[in-house]
């Protein structure tokens, strides 16, 4: 059995001798920890966020999550080829940079000592630098050790040191964790994510290591419902759920194809054309974040949110809390003076549609049920 296995392994070429390709594979063997970076190493720039045609609900949900990360993530479900991944990668390129402790593997915020990791707590003086907001991909087929972090192989083997190699969750701290095809994620990884997303702390107890580190991130998932449903527990972790569909009117479709084609032919020139629009969104984001803490939610809005959740029979308080937070973030992004009923009405479908219990006597979809409740209660 062992012989068999090693023959199989040896007949495969190691990376160092891969067949001719212009660029050698980029290999980052688990080395000493570097500050987390957004992974935009590829030469071609990402498709600009502002160049996405239509899909207003999805774009709004992503921007709300960027304004207020505490809303708890965005789930994008929909048809094939509707630009789900494109939008999320576009958002990553657009986010304003954040201040982080130099050399900290978790990119701790120097201004918030309460959330610091064990390393930053021990240091007396912390230097800060400006880094891009991390947007970390969780690729399918990732193994548990790379997600939560594990013993650093290289250092252990060559120097006999017991060092922790942070995983994807560490890199995603204070940023976004993006899972494409979230419904295909392995069950044991889902369990891990549920726990970390709920507590904001990643606890590692393996290979003789015992480490806790902050892992607060906005979970962004995308997927196609035809390929499998999501477990209700994971569904509930997402603050907003949006459904996207392929545009059906011809001019919009032509516009989408035209832009995509222009981007593929000359990415740099195409992105330059949208740089100004992207900058405007970034400015609006920064302004909205500054406005958010001062924006109070009037009692009337709170009461309407409560009535809405009551009418729809959503479980627990999470629905109301998300509804209130997302409406506030939307109001902040739009520069409104106060959080009004129309903010509530516009965000309610995204915030509530995935929290409804399936009613066996009501065949209409959850989106329609939310819309009906909004009409009944808010009169909009």
């Amino acid at each position, binding site marked *: *059995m062992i012989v068999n296995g090693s023959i199989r392994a040896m007949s495969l070429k190691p990376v160092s001798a891969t067949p001719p390709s212009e660029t050698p594979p980029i290999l980052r063997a688990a080395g000493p920890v570097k500050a987390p970076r957004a992974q935009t190493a590829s030469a071609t720039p990402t498709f600009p966020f502002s160049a996405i045609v239509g899909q207003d609900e999805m774009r709004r949900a992503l921007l709300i999550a960027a304004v207020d990360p505490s809303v708890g993530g965005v789930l994008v479900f929909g048809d094939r080829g509707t630009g789900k991944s494109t939008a999320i990668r576009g958002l990553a390129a657009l986010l304003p940079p954040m201040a982080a402790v130099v050399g900290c593997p978790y990119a701790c915020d120097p201004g918030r000592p309460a959330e610091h990791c064990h390393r930053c707590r021990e240091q007396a003086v912390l230097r800060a630098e400006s880094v891009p907001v991390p947007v970390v991909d969780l690729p399918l087929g990732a193994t548990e050790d790379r997600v939560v972090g594990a013993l650093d192989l290289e250092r252990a083997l060559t120097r006999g040191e017991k060092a922790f190699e942070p995983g994807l969750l560490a890199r995603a701290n204070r940023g976004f964790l993006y899972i494409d095809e979230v419904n295909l994620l392995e069950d044991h990884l889902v369990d891990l994510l549920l726990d970390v997303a709920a507590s904001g702390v990643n606890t590692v107890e393996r290979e003789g290591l015992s480490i806790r580190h902050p892992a607060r991130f906005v979970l962004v998932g995308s997927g196609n419902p035809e390929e499998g449903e999501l477990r209700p527990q994971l569904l509930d972790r997402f603050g907003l759920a949006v459904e996207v569909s392929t545009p059906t009117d011809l001019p919009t479709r032509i516009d989408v194809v035209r832009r995509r084609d222009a981007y593929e032919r000359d990415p740099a020139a195409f992105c330059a054309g949208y740089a100004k629009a992207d900058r405007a969104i970034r400015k609006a984001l920064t302004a909205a974040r500054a406005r958010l803490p001062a924006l109070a939610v009037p009692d009337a809005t709170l009461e309407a949110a409560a009535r809405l959740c009551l009418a729809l029979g959503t479980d627990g308080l999470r629905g109301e809390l998300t509804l209130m937070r997302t409406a506030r973030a939307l109001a902040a992004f739009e520069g409104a003076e106060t959080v009004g009923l129309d903010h509530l009405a516009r965000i309610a479908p995204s915030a509530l549609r995935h929290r409804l219990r399936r009613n066996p006597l009501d065949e209409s979809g959850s989106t329609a049920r939310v819309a009906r409740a909004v009409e009944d209660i808010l009169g909009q």
Partner: protein
Amino acid sequence: MSPAWAVALRVAHLVARDPHACGGVLVRAGAGPVRDLWLDRLAGELAPARPVRRMPAGIADDRLLGGLDLAATLAAGRPVAQSGLLADADGGLVVVPMAERLSPGTAARLAAALDAGEVRAERDGLAARTRTRIGLILLDEGEGDDAAVPEALADRLAFRLDLTGLAWGDTQGAATEGEPEPDDPDLEPDAAVADLCAVAAALGIASLRAPLLALRIARLLAGHKALRARDVREAACLVLAPRATRLPSSPEDAEAAPADRPESPASDGTESSDQGLEPGAESLVEAARAAIPPDLLARLGAAGAAPSSPKAGRVGAVMQAPRSGRPAGTRPGSPRTGRLSLLPTLRAAAPWQRLRSGAEGAPRLIQVRSDDFRITRFRQRSETTTIFAVDASGSAALERLAEAKGAVELLLAEAYVRRDKVALVAFRGTGAEIVLAPTRALARARRGLSALPGGGGTPLASGLDAAGTLARAVRRGGGTPVVVVLTDGRANVARSGAPGRVAAGAEALNAAGLLRADAIRTILIDTAARPQETARRLAEAMGARYVPLPYADAAAMSTAIRSAR
């Protein structure tokens, strides 16, 4: 040489020129000399620097995406990565046999590699990004109602070929030269985009990737020169025509076009756009129409809209860690909670050997610690329970109850062989009863069936409700329910037990809708002497496959039910 073969060779030529830009080809063909010849020709067209790799069925992630190389790691005393099959095929093609059996997970990994042009692996303590500009050749050997190639993946490939109808003789001889096309004017890229989108809309293609791929192919055809109308036309024929879901309405029957396409909200937009087609787009539509394979639409009609099967959701929650079934990878864990997987355990222990032996001085033994233990994860194919909902009312008894019983008995025998479970729900008079709870006892099922009395009214809604309740219970238990309804569709008793044709019919449709909402697989067998419109409507409402019994003997019926599983 037949025209279809000429098209196949043309496609091979194009894919060989730039596999990654094309995405690849979905080839529908059984294994045979014609397919082999096509693959040979394709390999012959490829430049020598472009590799071709064949992907074995059920490939594991470490080979597909890359991971830790056990032998090299042991030899070097430090972690050594090995690249996966996808990365090895960079610049060339990956051939996927039996693509209709691809799991959604593998399909998603392939799709991600196609999209990004690179493979990202976060595995075994290594993080790697490898350039992977590949094209895929998906060999679809599915027959009839077999599972289809994952649409998410097929959507990303430019070409679809159907070689099933081709005989060896078709591949011989020289190509018949078409009429030399007149030199036509250059096209503005914007006009080409608009034309291709219009054609896609006219053919009922919802995905936006299709026109985009067509545009890419047109560019590939044009080379470095400007786009010509001829390139766009050929691209439309090669890329868009095989994806058609409906025939474009020709000018004369544009008004008579059926407006009842409830499943596509696109109909309004596209119907109106048909009227206002640009002259250029119209000729393109005509060209594409001519290139639509003749049996394509018939096949589409036959495939129907299968309800989405609920896989990962509730079923997965119940059967989280089955102890038996097909192995599906490994994970860290204790042998107490699962079956130890020896090889992955050794693989996990391998990198540490030098370190551990250095510390404890026992060089010859392999040292395995509890952290190294890997246990096998299993995936269990959930068990099928076929629920028969039999209409035993007077009208049905009069006509075909005996025949229906015969068909059910045939299915029982088959279920017995497959170790499936069966259940029997009968409805007559004022309500429904579960004659037989899910069981494997064939004899009991047969007794219950033959003792089934007929007569009375048709409480169809109650029958469907009872079958639905049973199906949901089966699903909660981790099984896969299939509901087979045998009825003539003429409901005349309401849920309350009150007679009345109108109310009973409405309630039956409502009950059917509930079955559909829960994505329960259903088949409706129309037992009436002549196919009934009501039964057909009912089948539509529950998303069922409709089988009229007058045309089906017991054997045909059992084939239909088997294919729905």
